[in-house]
């Protein structure tokens, strides 16, 4: 088998939010934006399509959507044409699998599209479907599935154990909403003040409205290929997939792997593997997109990804250490808190932002960024997925 170096060569997405469009419409918009990002590539040269979507079976009454999407966007895949469902990490799973296929020579050029149409004509159905997104028979029937309660308990644990404050949680929202304010594709482009976040209506205390990612319609797309093909396609700097990991160590309501809810062993396990594969350390990362489904998530991710010490995530974010000018600018395009979170699309949105950052063409550019890390948490914290991208292989 071959052992080729794999590059991400194009990224696209549509306007995210409450969209008057179907998931098939949204996939076409995102694919169009992605094709436009690499004009030298002909559609006939794309031999694989992976479509990441979790809810299409429920909210769009569509299983096996990949051939439908392929036909609509004008692709005729010959190496792979398949749907992936890893809930919030579906897009990243697509990129990991595309990387493996291209690296081994089983595919040459793979497009990874992902996204959801989550808003249904009656809102109850969207919320109700969330109870299919965890362990339906054991957890869904307990009314779990909507994530705020789980992350509320996680936030309380972190606050009681490490002294983390509501101000520190809020600082994450203020930063990410500021970063998203210049992103035309984001669901929310309005900045929020610390006072507004602190005073927002409660969802599951201590989490309020601005501590939580919204429900979002939208799609995103990226194209990956091997190094030689990437060089042919454009003069832009090459961006390589250097390391990947995806861990799953327990089920949602039982067998939690950590000592307590703010102890994310499965994230540290994923980080160790991804950093080793990429042959880098946390200090080598210039820019990160981490899964800020809730403000508390980003704080714990800073710790368990190794960007700060365990328990120090609160002061780390409050003092701007994961903002522009700090140690590790994080969620530079607004993250989930600003962009929204159409589950299967999020990892692809992050990959697109990484591509733009490492090629020096992001809207909010981290000067000289050469190494980036993207992270997803999926389900009620049952999986962690990491991708490390670099300007060098």
């Amino acid at each position, binding site marked *: 088998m071959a052992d080729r170096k794999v590059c991400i060569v194009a990224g696209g997405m549509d306007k995210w939010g409450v969209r008057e469009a179907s998931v098939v419409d949204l996939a076409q918009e995102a694919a169009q934006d992605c094709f436009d990002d690499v004009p030298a590539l002909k559609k006939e040269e794309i031999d694989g399509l992976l479509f990441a979507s979790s809810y299409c079976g429920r909210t769009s009454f569509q299983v096996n959507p990949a051939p439908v999407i392929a036909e609509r966007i004008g692709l005729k895949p010959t190496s792979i044409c398949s749907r992936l469902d890893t809930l919030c990490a579906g897009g990243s799973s697509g990129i990991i699998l595309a990387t493996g296929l291209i690296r081994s020579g089983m595919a040459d050029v793979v497009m990874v599209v992902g996204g959801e149409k989550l808003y249904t*004509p009656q809102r*109850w159905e969207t*919320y*109700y479907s*969330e*109870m299919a997104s965890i*362990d*339906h*028979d*054991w*957890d*869904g*029937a*307990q*009314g*779990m*599935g*909507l994530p*705020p*309660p*789980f992350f*509320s*308990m996680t936030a*309380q*644990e972190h606050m009681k154990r490490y002294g983390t404050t509501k101000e520190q949680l809020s600082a994450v929202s203020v930063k990410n909403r500021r970063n998203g304010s210049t992103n035309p594709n984001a669901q929310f482009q309005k900045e929020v003040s610390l006072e507004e976040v602190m005073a927002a*209506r*409660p*969802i*599951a*205390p201590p989490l309020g409205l601005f501590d939580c990612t919204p429900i979002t319609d939208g799609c995103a797309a990226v194209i990956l290929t091997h190094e030689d093909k990437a060089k042919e396609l454009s003069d832009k700097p090459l961006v390589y997939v250097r390391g990947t990991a995806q861990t799953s160590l327990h*089920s*949602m*309501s*039982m*067998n*939690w792997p950590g000592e307590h*809810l703010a102890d994310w062993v499965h994230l540290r396990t994923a980080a160790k593997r991804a950093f080793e594969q990429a042959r880098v350390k946390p200090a080598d990362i210039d820019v990160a997109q981490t899964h800020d489904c809730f403000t508390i998530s980003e704080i714990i991710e800073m710790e368990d990804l190794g960007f700060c010490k365990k328990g120090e995530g609160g002061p780390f974010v409050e003092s701007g250490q994961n903002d522009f000018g700090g140690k590790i600018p994080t969620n530079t395009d607004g993250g989930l808190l600003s962009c929204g979170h159409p589950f299967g699309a999020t990892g692809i949105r992050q990959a697109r932002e990484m591509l733009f950052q490492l090629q020096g063409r992001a809207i909010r550019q981290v000067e000289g960024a050469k190494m980036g890390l993207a992270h997803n948490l999926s389900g009620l914290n049952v999986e962690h997925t990491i991708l490390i991208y670099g300007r060098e292989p």
Partner: protein
Amino acid sequence: MPVPGVPILEGLYPSTLDLYPLEAKEFNRIYQFYDNLRENRFTTTKCKKCGTTPFPPRVVCPKCNSDDLEWVDLPTKGKVLRFTEEVAGVPHGFDAPLIHALIELEDGRKLICRIANCKEGELKEGAAVQLFAYEVPPMIVEKRGVMEEKPRMFFAFEPVK
């Protein structure tokens, strides 16, 4: 009553919209768990070969791969470690506040579950809780055109009063 937008569903049972497990024995191999709930017993499967006692129950031991399993009782009492009261965005079928807790059973096993029979502001960390088994809407099994109602049980925990 016809279902709006989908009148063809009148009188039919859409199991893919059912919140609760398809507990009838025709649809799973762990129906004994639900039968035991009816006797207020909280149970799981224990591997007769290696002793592994996982929850939820299995049909094959996840450790040694044996299918020689037996039903054993788990404690029905425990204490609250952390809890949360969800006040907004509660899913259809549940009322706000929807209370969930990380509890520790008397054997040290931890699980996250719903806390029933409890008002907002009543629960405290460290509070004693016990199994609350309750009846949920029956599911339908159709045999030769006859719709048969199968009674169902589910569980939460509740404060010990």
